[in-house]
């Protein structure tokens, strides 16, 4: 084949572009990636997202630069009807591609698994009996979803049920997410927590807030017409602030707490049938 050494030229181009773009993406875009650094789990997810976006950049560049390169160099000359070279394959290229992609995929899966277990579920709903649990004292909080709002019960504080979520800072929280009608998904964005709320299932997620501030709570699983209205703001406060708040809640909701069903991992859902 005559002409310039396209292989060397393109690979050089790609390597240089990747060497420039990847650090830029990681350094500039990385800190802006969700969901922020308000909890240990959220910070972990930012790290994971940064790793993934850093890894994706050279792959994106490979294909996009190749498409541009091909459009410029591998085209039919104007007015000509030439045939291309009759090449049916290349065992070396195929083998190299296979080895590189297998290595990438295995590394990715190993990294994801390690991060999932080391992060004790990384903020995701991990079912009724998670394989790994954080050490130390945990504050249990139950999240009860129904159409179309969340309420929260604090079993260690007399099972009081509150309409808003307030958590103490620097304290591992054990969220027990359940539903009493259809499937919802408890998504506390800044906390880096997402766990489906299933009727009759106790779905556990761990989170440890590291910063005082507020966070948004939404529903992330379609649950009927007011799905988008399932929105609330929660707060992460200091230890003392939390104690004050929870005692206030206990006092003001005392009459309600008396008639509530006793605290339980799940509650028998209402029959979903229309009209009875």
């Amino acid at each position, binding site marked *: 084949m005559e002409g310039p050494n*396209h292989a060397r030229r393109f690979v050089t181009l790609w390597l240089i572009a990747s060497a420039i773009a990847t650090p830029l993406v990681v350094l500039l875009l990385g800190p802006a990636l969700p969901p922020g650094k308000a909890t240990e789990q959220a910070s972990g997810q930012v790290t994971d997202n940064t790793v993934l976006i850093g890894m994706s950049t050279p792959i994106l560049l490979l294909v996009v630069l190749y498409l541009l390169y091909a459009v410029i160099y591998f085209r039919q000359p104007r007015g000509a009807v030439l045939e291309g070279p009759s*090449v049916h394959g290349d065992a070396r290229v195929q083998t190299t591609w296979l080895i590189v992609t297998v290595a990438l995929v295995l590394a990715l899966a190993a990294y994801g698994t390690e991060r999932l277990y080391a992060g004790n579920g990384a903020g*995701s709903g991990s079912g009724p009996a998670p394989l790994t649990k954080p050490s130390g004292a945990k504050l249990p909080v139950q999240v009860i979803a129904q159409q179309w709002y969340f309420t929260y019960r604090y079993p260690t504080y007399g099972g009081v049920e509150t309409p808003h979520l307030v958590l103490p800072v620097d304290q591992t929280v054990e969220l027990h997410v359940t539903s009493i009608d259809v499937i919802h998904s408890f998504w506390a964005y800044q906390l880096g927590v997402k766990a489906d709320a299933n009727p009759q299932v106790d779905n556990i997620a761990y989170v440890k807030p590291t910063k005082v501030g507020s966070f948004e709570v939404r529903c992330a699983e379609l649950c009927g*017409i007011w799905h988008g209205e399932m929105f609330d703001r929660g707060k992460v406060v200091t230890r003392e602030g939390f104690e004050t708040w929870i005692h206030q809640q206990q006092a003001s909701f005392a009459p309600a707490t008396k008639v509530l069903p006793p605290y339980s991992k799940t509650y028998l*859902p209402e029959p979903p049938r229309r009209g009875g």
Partner: protein
Amino acid sequence: MTAAAAYAISERPAPRPWWRRLIGFNLLTAVILGVGGYYLGWWIGHEIVGKSFAFQEKTNENDVALLLAYFFGVAGFLIGLGFANYPVSRLLGRPPSLREKEEHGIARYFGLCTDHKVVGMQYMVGIGLFFFIGGLNAMLIRTELLHPTPTFVGPDTYISLVGMHGTMMMGMMTSGILGPFANYFVPIMIGARRMAFPRIESLTFWLLMAAGFILTSTIFFGGFPTGWTGYEPLNDQAVMGMDSYICFFALVGVSMALLGLNMMVTITTMRAPGMTWSRLPIFVWAVMATAVLMVLAAPMLVATLLMAAFDRTISTSFFIPGGGGSNYLFENLFWFFGHPEVYILALPGFGIVLELLPVFTRKPLWGYRLAVAGLLGVTLLSFFVWQHHLFVSGINADLRPFYMLSTEIISLPTGFIFLVFMATMWRGRATFTVPMLFCMAWAFNFLIGGLSGVFLSDTPSDTTTHGSFFVMAHFHYTIMGGLIFTFFAAIYYWIPKMTGLRFNELLAKTHFWLMFVAFNSTFLPLFIAGFEGQPRRVSEYAPHLQFINVWVSISAFVLGLSMLIFLANVVYSLIFVRVRAEANPWRSKSIEWQLPTPVPVHNFDEIPVFDADPYDYGLPLPVAGTRPAPAGAG
């Protein structure tokens, strides 16, 4: 009697007067019997079954009646079209025949026709119709999302629109490439005169049309609130419009399974001499892979929906947690179908791209075996990844590393396809015609779709992105970017063959560029909306996301406009101007371009013998399948 004699063409019958042609088994009879069947089912449901269900008296809702009405309606519709005739005549001892194939004129496009080319055209128009209804839903959705609070259609209608858009696209477009293009070209490409089961081929189309109208009828019964996934127990709680969803998807499932079966049998048994597995055009391989997925996955969907229908009507509780069932069961069953389903949408697109690429780069397909391995690898692996849709659901949480691994492994066979794509372009002589541009756009779109999929396959990352607009942008890149773009590539590539007419080049290029730019301008910002915390399927969202949403809505309207340009091109080029296309405008070596246009009813006078690779570009070799058969072959 030999097979050839049984299927020989008989003399063309004398034309009958127009009023006489209205009587008999045709679309008019089908509609009348369909409506009659519908009211019969409705009446039975109310008179016999409805009275024993207390809740139905209280709410004036009768799911039994509606499901029976749909069932009898579809049965009447199919009988009216004449699908019962052949089994009955065989029961009465009449000889086998393919009489339906011999209809002439425009009328055969409106009824049961066993000519695979007619079915292909029927599919193209029928699916196109529902594609535009689904697209219209999307336009209404985006209009609602111009404002952070529900102002335009309200949350009730909005959620129904979301459900209808998703279900319409996932259901009807499942056959988006297999329906029109595989039905039309697979028999030709393998050197056959027809499909293995020509009546079943027609049945799949009419089932799909009946299903489409059933889904559209949901607006008369209050719509359905569950989106295309139909999750329980919301499904059980929903009003009667949910029955339309159940009936629609079950019919689509039956149609898919039959279509897949037909394709598998045709490709396996009806290849002409010399058409070995290793000479099969790559598009046919992609159809084969898709067909396997359809046959294995679709019955699961039908069974699941049958169980859901029982839950809704006769108070079983397969999926009702309070009654001893589990909503996890529904999620497992649904996604066991649902994940292969998304590859059912993507694989034919791979086939189209790899089929067209050698034609436009004037090179053989690079790494044919690797491409086949990629297609079959995706087919196999797609059954082992479904729980990645349930990473945060709490179900089998300890299996997540397995599903993370299997999901990431599926990028290996997809990577093969990309390698084949890129290497086929290497040192090629590419001409950037409209079909080629759509193929290039596929590469870009599917790349974005694949890379965003990596974020979703990684459980810690998925915790943020799951159920958000990020997911929505991801699957629009893979499905719209992977299927609809290749669907248009196939239309622009094959319409000169199917109609003998040429598209207006300027309108076609305008369509492509507008569609490509608007598509990216619509869905790229949605990744950011998802990252910023906007959940899917909401009619109300955080006020600070309004700018992104308005931007996306405007881009979506432009995307809709690009579809209108396509429609204008169809009307202009195929109905009004009608410029005849060259016999082989792309200088393709594939066999369908060597046949006369329009393709004769029985495709080949003599069954061809394939003695060359279908992708011998770059060499002045004889064209595949043009050598006449030796005596006795076929």
